[in-house]
Each structure stands twice: as C-alpha cells, then as structure tokens.
C-alpha cells in the first residue's frame, strides 16, 4: 500500500509540474499573494494620510483606526485569494488528476494491478496535497519577505507563526476543494460536467450559503472582513443552519483572527472545526468511487 501511495503521489507531482494550465493558476495565485501585501500597504498609507488631512482640517479628533495595525494586516487580501484563486486551482488539480487516467483509458489497466483503486486515489490526493503544500509554502515565504520589506525589519516570531498557521489552514481548505474536484472527476460521466459541477459547488459555498444567513450582497463576500449574521428571526434561523456550512466564511473568520484583522468577530474554534470537517469529509468522499462509473467511457 505504501508503495502504491508513493508511486502514485510521485506521478501526480510530475503531471502537475508538466501541465501548463496548472502553472498558470499557480502563477496567478503566488503573484496575487505577493501583490496583496503591496496593495494592503499602499491602501493603509493612503487611509493614514486621509486621517491626517481630516485632523489638520479640524474635521475629526478621533484616533486613526489603523494607527497600530499588525504588519500582517497588509496581507489581509491573501485570505480572499486563497478562497478565490486557491480553491479553483485545487479544484482544477483534483479534476485533472482523475480525468487524466479516464481520458487515457488506463483505469482498467490500473485496476488489473494488485492494489485497490482506493489506494490509487489516496496516492493522487497525497500528491496534490504535496503540490498545494509547496505552492502555499512558496506563497507564504514570498509574503513574509514582502511584509518584512514593507516594515523594514524581519517579522517577529509571533507574526511568523501566525502566517505559518494561516498557510496551514489554507492548505486544509484547499485539500478539501481538491477532494471536491477529484470526487466529480471520478463520478461524472461527462468531461464537461466533471469541470463545471465543482465550480458550481464552489460558488454555492462561497456566495450563496453565506448570503442566505447574512443577507449580505454577493460581492461584499469578497471583502476580507467576514459578514455578521443578519437581523430578524428568519435570518437568524437560516444563519444557524447555513453558517457552519459556509466554509469559506468560516475560513475568513479564522484567517482574520490569525492575520490580526481589527474588525474580525466570530467563533474561531467553530470556524476551524468547520474547515477541518469539510476537508476530512471531502478527502474521504474523493477516495471512494464506484468501480462501474470510473471504468465507463468518458463522454465529452
């Protein structure tokens, strides 16, 4: 079993390194994580200047709400890039890994070997997990360097640990989305459905579920600050049901806490539990497949 896992994982890594579409998404993701620090810094500098101007004109005596923000505050947009680009990158890796074998018609050949297909799928997930870990490690290292350059000194131990834990939580979330991709890749009879269905699942998790519980606008859900539950009994009732399922909002809450976002509120332990349960569920489901479906010929 160990041999199967490591051989399949190694093959998966090789494929991920060769595929240009994966390169593009990985490139966009890493670039945006780095750019987010620059955007955060520039925005913060402008807001501080605006506040100084308001004080000079005698329009306010209130203290600058962002006077003593943590350096990690500048990386707040990274949370959104993990939810948007990272999740789609993970889905594409998951779908591609399973469709590749089905497209090439080698599933029957693999099944003729003395190893369970479940082990092959676990190996694939392990390979994708390693690729995602490498991408996140690179992104967090770039982010750390960028933030250190902005503040003019290396980030302290606490900030570095917080950034590291944020990277780990991002990995858990992305592994869950890779599982969603693999699940549809093994179960869909049509190649187009295998790609389209997980994207729709992602859009339900990222936009529809949070809106039901918060009455928030879909676009406001792209803001790094998590949206609080809406008022009224219906909204509270809906929020009670859908909030634990709104994995991306839960991820935003925990990430906001880790990156010391000043306006974050919510249940951090519940948020971590929600993300972990989602990832566990998706990894289990992605490694279980009906032999009949996966050996069927794949339609366009």
């Amino acid at each position: 079993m160990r041999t199967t896992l490591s051989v399949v994982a190694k093959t998966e890594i090789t494929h991920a390194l060769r595929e240009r579409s994966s390169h593009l998404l990985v490139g966009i993701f890493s670039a945006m994580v780095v750019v987010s620090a620059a955007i955060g810094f520039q925005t913060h500098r402008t807001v501080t200047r605006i506040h100084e101007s308001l004080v000079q004109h005698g329009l306010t005596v209130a203290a600058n709400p962002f006077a003593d923000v943590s350096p990690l505050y500048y990386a707040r947009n990274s949370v959104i890039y993990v939810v948007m680009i990272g999740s789609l990158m993970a889905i594409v890796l998951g779908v591609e890994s399973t469709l590749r074998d089905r497209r090439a018609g080698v599933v029957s050949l693999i099944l003729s070997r003395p190893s369970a297909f479940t082990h092959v799928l676990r190996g694939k997930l392990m390979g994708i997990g390693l690729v995602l870990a490498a991408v996140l490690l690179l992104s967090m290292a770039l982010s750390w360097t960028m933030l250190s350059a902005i503040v003019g000194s290396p980030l302290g131990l606490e900030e570095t640990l917080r950034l590291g834990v944020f990277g780990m939580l991002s990995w858990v979330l992305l592994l869950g989305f890779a599982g969603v991709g693999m699940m549809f890749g093994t179960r869909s009879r049509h190649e187009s459905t295998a790609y389209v269905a997980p994207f729709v699942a992602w859009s339900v998790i990222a936009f529809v579920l949070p809106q039901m519980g918060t009455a928030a606008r879909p676009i406001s859900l792209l803001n790094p600050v998590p949206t609080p539950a809406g008022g009224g009994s219906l909204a509270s009732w809906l929020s009670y049901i859908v909030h634990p399922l709104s994995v991306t909002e839960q991820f935003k809450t925990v990430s906001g806490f880790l990156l010391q976002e000043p306006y974050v509120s919510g249940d951090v332990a519940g948020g971590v539990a929600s993300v972990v349960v989602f990832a566990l569920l998706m990894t289990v489901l992605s490694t279980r497949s009906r032999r009949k479906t996966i050996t069927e010929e794949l339609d366009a």
Partner: protein
Amino acid sequence: MRKSLVIARKELRDLSRDPVILALLGFLATASLLSLAVASNDMKIQIAEYNSYVSQLAMSGVTNPPPVVEFFPLQLMRGGVEYLEILGALFALLSGYGVIAKEKSRGTLDLILTRPLGAAAYASGKIIGLSVFWCVIVIALNLATVIELMVIGGAQLDALDVTKIALAAVFSWINLMIWATVGVAMTSYFGRPQTALVLSIALWLMIVLIIPQIGDTMDPDNQVPGGLFAALSIVKADELQVLAQFATYDTIRNGLEVSSVSKLFERITFALLGIKDKYNLQSIALIWADMWGYACALSSVLAVTISLSLSAHIRNTSPRRK
C-alpha cells in the same frame, strides 16, 4: 444568412436540451430569486424595527422621530444583479465553451464542413443561437424578478421602474454575451477544449473577481464596516474635499475598476436601478448623461469579443490550418 439561422436554430435546441446548462440556469434563477426574498425580508425587518423604535420614542415623549426608512423596491434587485455579474458570466462562458467543445470532441465539425456551408456562416449561426438563448433567459429572469418584487416584496412598480428594469436587462444581456463569445473564442482557438476551459475560467477569475476586488479593497471608505467616513462622522462635502487631495490614488483605483467589464456592467445597472444613491429616483436622461461612456465601452467590448470569436472559429476551421 439562411444557413446561419439553421445553425442557430439547432444550437438553440441543443442548449435548451442540455441538462448541465438547464441545471446551471435553474441554480442561477434560484440564487437570484432567493437573494431578492432575503433582501425583502431584511427590508421588512428594518421597517418593523424603525416603527417599533418610533413608537418607543413616542411613548417616552420624543416628538421629532428619526428620518423615515424609505423603501425603494428596485434596490432589492442588487443581489440578483451581482449574481448575474459573477455566476451569470461564468455560466455564459460555459455555454460558449459547450457549443464549440461538443463539435470538437464528437468530431462532427469536419462532417458539417463537408456540407456547402462557410465557416463564417457556421460560426455566426452559433453566436446567433447563443444570443437568442441568453435573451430568452434574461427576459424570463427579469419577469420572474418583477413578479417576485410585486408579490413577496409588496412593491408597486410604475412605468419608469419597468423601463429601468428593461434597460438593465439589455445590459445584462450584453454582459452575458461578452462572456459567451469569450467562451466561443477561447474554445475555438485552443486545440484542446479542456485547456480552453481552464484558461477561460482563469480569465473570468481575473476580470470578474480579482480586479473589482482589488478596486473595492483599495477604496478608503471600505476599510471599516459601515464606511470610514461614516465612522469618523464626516459629512459628504468634507469627504469629497479631502479626497480631492488624493486624486492620483483614486484615478488609479478607478482605472483598475473600469478595466473590468463586470464593473462597467455593475455601474450601469446600479445607476439604472437606483442602487447607487446618487441616481435613485432620477430620470433616465440624467442617468444616461453619466453612464453613456460605460454603455459604449461595454457594447464595444461585445463587438470585439464577437469579432474575436468569429475570427478564431474561421481560423480554426480553415483547410490550410488543418
């Protein structure tokens, strides 16, 4: 032209029978109508809370109540517009991908081109089919929205409201057609449909989500829940005076936003539906005076994407290339 219409009719039939497209549209309609129901409920709660607050003030002897919470029914359509902007664009892209990918993967393209049918007529037939399909979808979605506004939202719409909704629907169609033709162009251009799909989705991600998101988070007023200037109790006139000193920053931010077709669509529809307070209850002439530039830009982008999809398809099917 007659040959194009035959292809268009066939595409329409295929699209209306495609279970994936139908499921996606069902999902889009459900999400839009649900967002309207949630917004209506939220509005009713706000009005009830206001009435309760006013009655408490009256009981405690306060004679001047706070400003009335006003109900503007078209503003309830905001969630639906944003779903069309994000998910509608994605589904339109997938529909454009589907009409070309099916011919490529089934190998029927070569067979069709053995008939006396030019590549241009074939490609234009597909685009006409897509445009009629999305036109029907936009009309159906807007009709359902109007009915829901009246039944669940309790709105009374006048002729001006209906005209504004119809104009917003026209721009929704333009936006959706931009993405459908991007899907056609990308799938025609790339040999492997799956590569085209992943690259198209990366493009959608950049234009629909990332660029507007950067613009939004760079907005100084978006840094604090409820708005920075509101939190500091700064009136609008003072806010504008201070922001005038940061014109370069705002020009860059605004330039970034308007480089996204989604933001152009959003600004036009938000103005028409009065979601942007400045345009609420204003005449169409006044809104048009501010929005015609965005409308022209959006229409020009559609003209470009149609041209690209036609040329990519003709190039892809030319015997010399084969």
